[in-house]
């Protein structure tokens, strides 16, 4: 067969693009850039980070030594969790509460908020902490006893509650037990765990992205979607086809995952959490990230060490 002429190649590429783009747009509700809520694009924790504290006279530990030698804090994070860690495609910056905590921690340890975010999802957090591919994990990481066998937790730094969203004409849900025998979209990680714990009779349908969960509810593939209230309120507020139910349940205490073998470093991070809670940095960060997505004033920061496993 003769080599294809450039003109034909271009034609083919054009046909492909013309076919794929509207299809893609239709499957994500037409606003992939902000994943469904214009407010996501305006979140920015830069001010809170700029006003964050720098640690003085920190004890020398192997982990701290390594981080300082690198000049950057390597963290396991997410770029698809609105309010906590979400890539803004317009600016290329990651915005949210979790990334803010990581940047504040980097500033506390290094003097500059230099953070290198590695995204691996819920599957790999323990593994990459253990093999020191990252220094910390700040990624809606629920503190649990089984995980505390493998990694250390500093925290909780935030206690999330799960909420439930249904379609505009979906079923009445007033409590989590109403989800029994229903198909419920969840993302892997904190949301899936919380649902399985609170209502084991619910059938969890796991989707990778929050936009996919929202689409599954809109299209009637599942009867409900469960996630933390910040994500749900952010979505439901702008989509009339979704309805936020009054039901909330569970409590997911988010902690900073740390390597197990450096207890002195954990004390530094606990000290950091106490410091940002006391000097108002925590509240400022909350008001610039999760705050705009949920109703009500900023909560009190939780006390580190107050849950089993931390």
């Amino acid at each position, binding site marked *: 067969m003769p080599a294809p002429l450039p003109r034909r190649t271009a034609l083919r590429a054009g046909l492909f693009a013309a076919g794929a783009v509207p299809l893609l747009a239709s499957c994500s509700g037409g606003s992939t850039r902000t994943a469904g809520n214009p407010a996501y694009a305006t979140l920015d924790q830069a001010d809170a980070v700029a006003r964050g504290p720098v640690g003085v006279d920190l004890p020398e530990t192997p982990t701290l030594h390594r981080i300082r030698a690198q000049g950057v804090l390597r963290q396991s994070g997410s770029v698809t969790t609105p309010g906590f860690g979400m890539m803004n495609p317009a600016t290329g910056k990651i915005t949210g509460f979790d990334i803010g905590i990581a940047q504040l921690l980097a500033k506390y340890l290094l003097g500059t908020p230099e953070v290198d975010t590695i995204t691996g999802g819920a599957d790999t957090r323990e593994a990459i902490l253990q093999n020191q591919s990252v220094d910390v994990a700040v990624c809606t990481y629920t503190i649990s006893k*089984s995980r505390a066998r493998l990694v250390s937790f500093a925290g909780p730094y935030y206690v999330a509650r799960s909420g439930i969203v249904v379609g505009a004409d979906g079923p009445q849900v007033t409590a989590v037990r109403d989800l029994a025998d229903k198909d419920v979209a969840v993302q*892997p990680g904190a949301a899936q765990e919380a649902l399985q714990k609170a209502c084991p009779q619910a059938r969890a349908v796991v989707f990778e992205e929050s936009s996919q969960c929202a689409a599954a509810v809109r299209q009637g593939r599942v009867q409900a979607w469960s996630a933390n209230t910040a994500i749900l309120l952010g979505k439901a507020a702008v989509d009339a086809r979704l309805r936020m139910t009054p039901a909330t349940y569970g409590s997911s205490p988010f902690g900073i995952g740390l390597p197990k073998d450096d207890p002195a470093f954990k004390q530094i991070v606990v000290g950091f959490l106490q410091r940002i809670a006391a000097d108002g940095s925590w509240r400022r960060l909350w008001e610039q990230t999760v705050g705009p997505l949920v109703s009500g004033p900023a909560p009190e920061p939780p006390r580190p060490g107050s849950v089993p496993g931390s």
Partner: protein
Amino acid sequence: MLSGHAGEILGGFTTTLLLTACAFPLALVLGCVVAICRISPVRPLRIAGRLYVDLVRNSPLLLIAVLLIFGLPDAGVLIPLFWCLVLALGVYFAAYVCETIRSGIRAVDRGQVEAARAIGLPFRRVVLDVLLPQAFRAMVQPLGTILINVALGSALGAAVGVDELTLETRSFNLETAEPILAFAVAACGYLVINLAVSGVVRLVERKVRVLR
């Protein structure tokens, strides 16, 4: 720790087998149809077949799965996630099956067809008795590779809510925080499937080999 979750993981393994068992025949049938289009004397059919292969083979499988899973309901067709994924795997690997069949047919010496014509066989007999049996023998290995890829590709179910092996081991990992163990179990599951496939492929190939 594994024993407490053996039921779920075995269930996931079964779903992976079922996905593969449903998707591969679909890919075979669809791939045959596309291949026939591509070698047919009718020009629009040839163009359609070629367009299909170019579009599908050059897209990521995840993209096709997501398009079907979230695009079909918008078009008014809501089918269960399992069958959406079967459809995606079938549609995707049909492009590879098509190209394998085409190369299998190319592998048959032209002289064979000319000889068959010379002894007066009608077109149907030329294709069914001379061309395809020899072409099939050249396709055993590459079709086996596609079968293995279907089994591996079904792991995408974990991203789109199908309870197959990868998703079940992920859930196991979420509960127990044992990522290395969890994914080693999953890897063994795929290894078992694929070693079995390559064993069968070797057997079949030994039986049907053409000595040249």
